[in-house]
């Protein structure tokens, strides 16, 4: 053991312990890992992306500054304008369907019934499994020749014909059914369908969590006033679930707006570039053709809408005092 006459110098360890007792020091120390990750892998790439979008960078070159040249080119390109429009259309329609059907499913799941817990758990499956893998199953179900939907349609068609006794079995192969992914507008509808299928459980379970916080006596009071089921939904359920609903919808808009996987698997942007979204077009330009500057510019086009949505959400959360 050391024997020292004077008061011992605080060791490094002791000084560290004292420093960490200070909230300001400890705050920054605890934030450091998260901040470091965000700076290196979000903030820096973001700045880099803005810079790339202002250059004519192609894979393997460093690229030269061309100002807004990429953006000029994009606005003159039909594919880009289609992709931008598709993204807005896809997000709007899919979100409406997810919100409405999700609310319906949530109200159903909120009832008391046998196997309620297991039903709630299984309904969430589309949301938890890898999206590309379930989308592969949809790709197979949409197959031009072996689509199970078309087989069923053919079967129903033949049944109907059979009932009326008009046409016999020779015409079995006559009705092929629609080309789900081959026709531009039908392809977009198919992509939306898969997005709704995947996202609906998320809406339903989130709404359900909101429904369960509504005190039952409110419904009892409405019953006493003689309110019908619909009236109760409009005047009790909907106003009370609005805060949750808005947050869920905003969150979903962000994710849907930036969707990549569905189109990448189902159509690759086809037929004839009619189903491209901003994300898949950015991928095709940046990774497929190696036109990095233009790809980065397309991806950045998501920013204004996302920024608007994020600011709206921050404003709303603050106003509601949720956080």
């Amino acid at each position: 053991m050391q024997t020292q006459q004077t008061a011992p110098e605080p060791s490094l360890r002791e000084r560290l312990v004292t420093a960490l007792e200070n909230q300001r020091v400890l705050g920054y120390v605890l934030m450091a890992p998260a901040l470091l990750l965000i700076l290196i892998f979000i903030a820096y790439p973001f700045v880099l992306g803005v810079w790339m979008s202002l250059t004519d960078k192609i894979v393997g070159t460093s690229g030269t500054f061309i100002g807004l040249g990429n953006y000029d080119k994009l606005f003159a390109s039909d594919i880009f304008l289609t992709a931008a429009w598709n993204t807005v259309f896809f997000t709007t329609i899919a979100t409406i369907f997810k919100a409405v059907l999700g609310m319906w499913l949530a109200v159903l799941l909120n009832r008391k019934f046998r196997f309620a817990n297991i039903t709630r758990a299984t309904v969430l499956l589309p949301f938890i499994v890898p999206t590309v893998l379930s989308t592969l199953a949809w790709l197979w179900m949409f197959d031009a020749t072996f689509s199970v939907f078309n087989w069923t349609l053919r079967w129903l068609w033949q049944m109907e014909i059979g009932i009326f006794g008009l046409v016999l079995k020779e015409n079995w192969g006559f009705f092929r059914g629609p080309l789900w992914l081959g026709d531009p507008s039908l392809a977009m509808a198919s992509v939306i369908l898969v997005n709704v299928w995947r996202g609906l459980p998320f809406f339903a379970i989130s709404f359900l969590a909101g429904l369960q916080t509504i005190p039952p006596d409110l419904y009892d009071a409405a019953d006493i006033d003689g309110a019908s089921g619909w009236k109760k939904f409009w005047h009790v359920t909907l106003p009370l679930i609005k805060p949750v609903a808005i947050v869920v919808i905003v969150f979903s808009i962000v994710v849907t707006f930036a969707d990549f996987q569905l189109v990448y698997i189902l159509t690759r942007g086809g037929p004839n570039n009619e189903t491209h979204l901003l994300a898949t077009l950015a991928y095709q330009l940046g990774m497929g053709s190696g036109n990095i500057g233009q790809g980065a510019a397309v991806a950045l086009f998501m920013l204004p809408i996302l920024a608007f949505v994020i600011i709206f959400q921050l404003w709303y959360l603050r106003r509601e005092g949720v956080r």
Partner: protein
Amino acid sequence: MNAMVGETYFRRLVVFYIPLFLFVFAMLFPFAWMLITSIKPDAELYNPRISPFIVREPTLEHWESLFGTTLFIRWAVNTLWVAIASTAVSLFAGVLAGYALSRLVFRGSTMFGIMIFVTYLVPPTLLFIPLTGVVTWMGLQDTTWSLIFTYPTFLVPFCTWLLMGYFQTIPKELEECARIDGATRLQAMSKIVLPLAVPGILSAGIFAFTLSWNEFLYALVFIHSPETKTIPVGVTSELIKGDVFFWGALMAGALFGSVPVAIVYSFFVEHYVSGMTGAVKG
């Protein structure tokens, strides 16, 4: 009286059981289709004249070819490793940051909170092109490390946001008591708050695990060697050769790529759901 009961039952059937059944059917049908397709011989798969709903001679040939002739097991190991490692990194950073933001008073904490929230909503599709540059520059391209370091970009904000909310539900008084008894701030955090926060940490961890297991875009862009790929990328890129789709093996891959995450989910349904709903509500 009898008519009344009959009527309400009928009504319940129409407004409740039938819609609920249709929803559940629609949600689960694609998974049933994966299973049916994966055990059907090619002769039945590619015959448009027979009913696709019936498996006449079930076979395991597609399962065998998936496990025997593809790198599927390798992809599963990669996916598991990436999911566990990136979840661990994210939980570490998220727990510390969440604690600091919910408990400590320091300059810039509000700004950091907003920053975390904003990055939470930045989608991977916005940044993947420049991020490819960063990954290459760090020499991580074509390694699983590229994913372990980039997945936290969407996991850390999520974990932090969720845990901030969770820490706020733990009474401050508990910590203050410990501090009066001579515990340092770090000790109060690790010995008092963190044990109480285990359910929240578990929720964040389960959710983060499934998110990394499912991630596609970064894995598609950063990884090129077949033996380094994850399941989502391996199945979609290596099992489809040009225009030739081996549907039996593909659906077997889709099925077995989904099963592990479904099993994890089934054990932690409550945690997963509270993580998911907590994440949006904050």
